[in-house]
């Protein structure tokens, strides 16, 4: 795709419709030239040379350009605008540029008005298109009354000046309606896609977590509890060998980490937010990611390096900086073919002098900088004593485009049009056009041989509109309505045969032509293509009967049938294309979801797992190694360590909806002092960060007292159930309840009567 004026993302519904409209517009322009050729040949040879050079050459050139660009799937915007402006110029200067024409028929430039109004309306919107149509119609009407325009009477001039723009605006309105619907459908699909991708990742994460939990449960926790309780020699040996086996399993899990794939940017940010809040619910998390980049993918290795380094920086800030605020901000921008992604961790804590940090404590330099460098990224640290520290992690590289590019909505059903087809707009426009047609018919009533058949035909036309626009249960028009519409088409065209003049071309007295064309289009859209074709044949017979019995002969018949035939053909092409687009979108939609599930979610889950495993190894491997290497008996301090570590790991599993590094650190320190800390977690999902912050701060405050003996944290089951923290020391019990907004209420509960 060389360029597109419509959308940023490739191959969307909008793009499909836009391309279709571009091609139809180019085709409509070409077709509109055809009826004017016989007139143009006689008129142009007598026209002023400058008028021919500027306008005729320009209009032909822009039409050719539109055809070429549309055929090459490029935007026709520029030639369309030029075409509209040239037509306006041509009509406005026609009194001076064109020779006189006979009054009996329209000048050839009348045929250019329709395509010009369509070009203008699609380019600038319906309101500006209407204004353009009004100006153009007015210019044409004025020209028509001049000698160069055939000195037509005012009624003819107004009819012709009104009819062409009105008909063109109807076409443009349908096209713009489809485009608007397509854009809305794209938006919906984008949202649905994001939701489904997030759900897919949650599922993948849950599967990984389950697997890891099983390992933690089966091996790590069992080893630790066995070590904490072990009494006799045989059990000590069994515990030691269990510890060795567990260490081997952890190593295997670590080496199995797969980071070859690609993760989506939105998935990465989701992980980043979870992992930031797991460090501490007080971390302020921010993003600046354009929505259009959500689906971009980056290598899993880069994602893992960014995530792990960001978490390291956050932990440093939360643990050591004594900061009031810690914030992390993720940014992504596209620079040409490259994706630039950065994560910035800032705190307003103590800060330090980088040069004065001893080499063995350069965790940030070694782990973060090295990790980022290995993944092709950079890490920069700036810090000032008393001001704070900023860590900037950045990665720039080519994004990995997904294999399945199309994101589309599901169509309503395989036999129907795509979602959001503007049915109501089409109905309104049909009624509007019937009204305009009847108005023009009444305006030109003096041209009818008899008024009564014309009035009857107008009544039949209203009935016809009502029948084809009958709401029904589905898009497909019911059989009775389809057959009735045929009868009414015959009635309208047949009745008009009796009253149309036979000695001169009736011009605007042919009020029923355009509404009947639109009726055929509606029939095609409503899945009655065969009936529409029969309708066209009925029209051909009726028009033929009138034309062949009058002065116009076969030429009159061709001119009369040309419009409906072309419109019907276009309608058939449009509806078939729309159905094809709908089918393709449905297929692509399925593929996209499968792809999202199988690749991005899968790899994101593995990135997350490697972080969990790294954590687990960091937490448990020292203790497990000491258990495995213990001599005949496991010493009491190691038993205590195993018991405390088991409690911490178990709480991290049981109370994962509220547990963060910060809370784990606080409770671990309390357990070491002999305080009983229990979490009762009945909740089905994580608590909001504001509640997490309130719980952490309440638990921290409760555990600050040296007299505290017991703290119980309970997470209620639902979002409307309060979270509570119960604090007990020898003399009193305090109950603090925290609601979903993070506001809390604390009360003393009497301990003795």
């Amino acid at each position, binding site marked *: 795709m060389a360029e597109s004026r419509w959308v940023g993302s490739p191959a969307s519904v909008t793009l499909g419709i836009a391309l279709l409209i571009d091609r139809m517009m180019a085709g409509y322009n070409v077709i509109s030239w055809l009826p004017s050729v016989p007139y143009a040949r006689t008129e142009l040879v007598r026209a002023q040379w400058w008028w021919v050079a500027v306008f005729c050459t320009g209009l032909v050139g822009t039409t050719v350009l539109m055809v070429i660009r549309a055929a090459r799937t490029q935007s026709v915007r520029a030639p369309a605008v030029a075409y509209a402006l040239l037509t306006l110029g041509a009509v406005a200067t026609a009194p001076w540029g064109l020779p006189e024409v006979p009054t009996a028929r329209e000048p050839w430039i009348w045929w250019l008005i329709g395509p010009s109004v369509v070009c203008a309306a699609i380019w600038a919107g319906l309101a500006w298109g209407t204004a353009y149509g009004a100006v153009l119609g007015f210019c044409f009407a004025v020209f028509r009354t001049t000698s160069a325009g055939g000195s037509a009477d005012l009624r003819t001039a107004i009819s012709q000046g009104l009819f062409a723009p009105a008909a063109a605006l109807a076409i443009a309105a349908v096209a713009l309606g489809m485009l608007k619907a397509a854009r809305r459908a794209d938006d919906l699909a984008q949202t649905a896609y994001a939701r489904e991708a997030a759900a897919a990742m949650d599922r993948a994460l849950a599967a990984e977590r389950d697997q890891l939990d*099983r390992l933690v449960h089966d091996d790590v*926790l*069992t080893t630790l509890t066995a070590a904490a309780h072990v009494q006799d020699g045989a059990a000590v040996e069994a515990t030691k060998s269990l510890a060795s086996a567990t260490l081997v399993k952890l190593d295997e899990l670590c080496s199995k980490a797969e980071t070859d794939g690609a993760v989506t940017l939105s998935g990465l940010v989701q992980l980043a937010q979870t992992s930031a809040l797991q460090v501490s619910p007080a971390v302020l998390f921010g993003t600046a990611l354009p929505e259009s980049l959500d689906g971009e993918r980056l290598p899993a290795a880069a994602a893992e390096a960014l995530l792990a380094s960001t978490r390291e920086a956050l932990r440093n800030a939360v643990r050591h900086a004594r900061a009031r605020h810690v914030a992390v901000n993720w940014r992504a921008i596209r620079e040409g073919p490259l994706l630039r992604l950065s994560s910035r961790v800032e705190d307003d804590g103590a800060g330090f002098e980088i040069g004065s940090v001893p080499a063995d404590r350069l965790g940030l330099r070694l782990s973060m900088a090295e990790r980022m460098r290995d993944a092709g990224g950079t890490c920069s640290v700036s810090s000032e004593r008393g001001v704070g520290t900023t860590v900037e992690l950045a990665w720039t590289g080519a994004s990995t485009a997904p294999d399945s590019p199309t994101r589309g909505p599901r169509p309503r059903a395989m036999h129907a049009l795509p979602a959001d087809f503007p049915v109501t707009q089409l109905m309104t426009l049909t009624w509007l056009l019937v009204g305009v047609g009847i108005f023009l018919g009444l305006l030109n009533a003096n041209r009818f041989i008899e008024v009564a058949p014309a009035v009857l035909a107008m009544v039949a036309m209203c009935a016809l509109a009502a029948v084809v626009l009958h709401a029904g249960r589905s898009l497909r028009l019911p059989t009775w309505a389809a057959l009735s519409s045929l009868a009414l088409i015959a009635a309208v065209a047949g009745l008009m045969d009796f009253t149309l003049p036979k000695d001169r071309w009736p011009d605007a007295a042919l009020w029923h032509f355009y509404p009947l064309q639109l009726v055929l289009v509606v029939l095609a859209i409503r899945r009655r293509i065969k009936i529409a074709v029969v309708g066209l044949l009925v029209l051909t017979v009726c028009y033929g009967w009138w034309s062949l019995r009058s002065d116009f002969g076969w030429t009159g018949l061709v001119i009369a049938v040309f419009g409906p035939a072309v419109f019907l053909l276009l309608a058939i092409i449009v509806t078939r294309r729309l159905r094809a687009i709908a089918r393709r979108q449905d297929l692509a939609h399925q593929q996209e979801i499968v792809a999202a599930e199988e690749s991005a979610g899968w790899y994101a889950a593995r990135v997350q797992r490697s972080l969990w495993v790294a954590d687990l190894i960091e937490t448990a491997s020292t203790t497990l190694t000491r258990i495995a290497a213990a001599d005949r008996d496991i010493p009491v301090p190691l038993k205590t360590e195993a018991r405390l570590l088991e*409690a911490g790991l*178990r709480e991290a599993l*049981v109370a994962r909806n509220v547990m963060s590094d910060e809370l784990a650190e606080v409770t671990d320190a309390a357990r070491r002092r002999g305080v009983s800390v229990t979490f009762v977690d009945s909740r089905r999902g994580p608590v909001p960060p504001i509640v997490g912050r309130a719980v952490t701060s309440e638990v921290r405050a409760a555990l600050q007292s040296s007299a505290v003996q017991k703290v119980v944290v309970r997470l209620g089951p639902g979002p409307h159930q309060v979270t509570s923290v119960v604090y007990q020391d020898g003399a009193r019990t305090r109950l603090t309840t925290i609601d979903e907004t993070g506001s809390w209420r604390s*009360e003393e*509960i*009497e301990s003795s009567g």
Partner: protein
Amino acid sequence: MVDRTGRQADASEQIRVVVVDDHVAVRLGLAGSLGRLPSTAGLRVVAQARTTTDLKRVLKENACDVIVLDLILDDASDPAETVAELVAGDYRVLVYSIADNPRLIRRALAAGAHGLSRKSESLAETAEKIRQVAHGQTLVSTEILAMIDGDQAFVEARLSNREREVLTLYVSGIDVPQIARRLYITENSAKEYLRRIRTKYSEISRPAPSKVDLLRRAIEDGVVPPIQPQ
């Protein structure tokens, strides 16, 4: 004490325990400790089993009073099925678990397990629970209470506001006397509310003398969310 035939045993008799766990360290740890310390006096591990097949064999060869059963065995057996089978054979079952998987615990309790002991609890606590189970009691612990508390649909559908309030405070770690004072009711009333939760089932001839039984009734009635086998 109740043996597998339901006969009340003499309290002075030793309680015979079978330990089922796929980790040899756990089996040896319990077998080595029960009965040898003052806090575990009166308990004796008569046999150990690694899988459910082992257990069936062991039970044919040994009489026992309490089976201490790990929830996840490496033979991938369904703990609920194992528990149901054992309870049907009149055995008393104490689930011995890390207690990190509420769904599995709920399944085991619904299948008729008589109590739950966490592996991280001290040996003295576990020994006491074995004794209580052997003497016909059905145990209640924070984990079990949390499961009733976590079953929001049940709590909302079945419990009055006051009963829910009492249960919530109870699960929050507050004792019955303190609950009574906080709600301005007598201690007996607080106990009565807890009893009434169980009575709701008793009234319809389906007694639920303990919270575990109550949970069983709730699961039987489908008020607890569907439980998927793992």
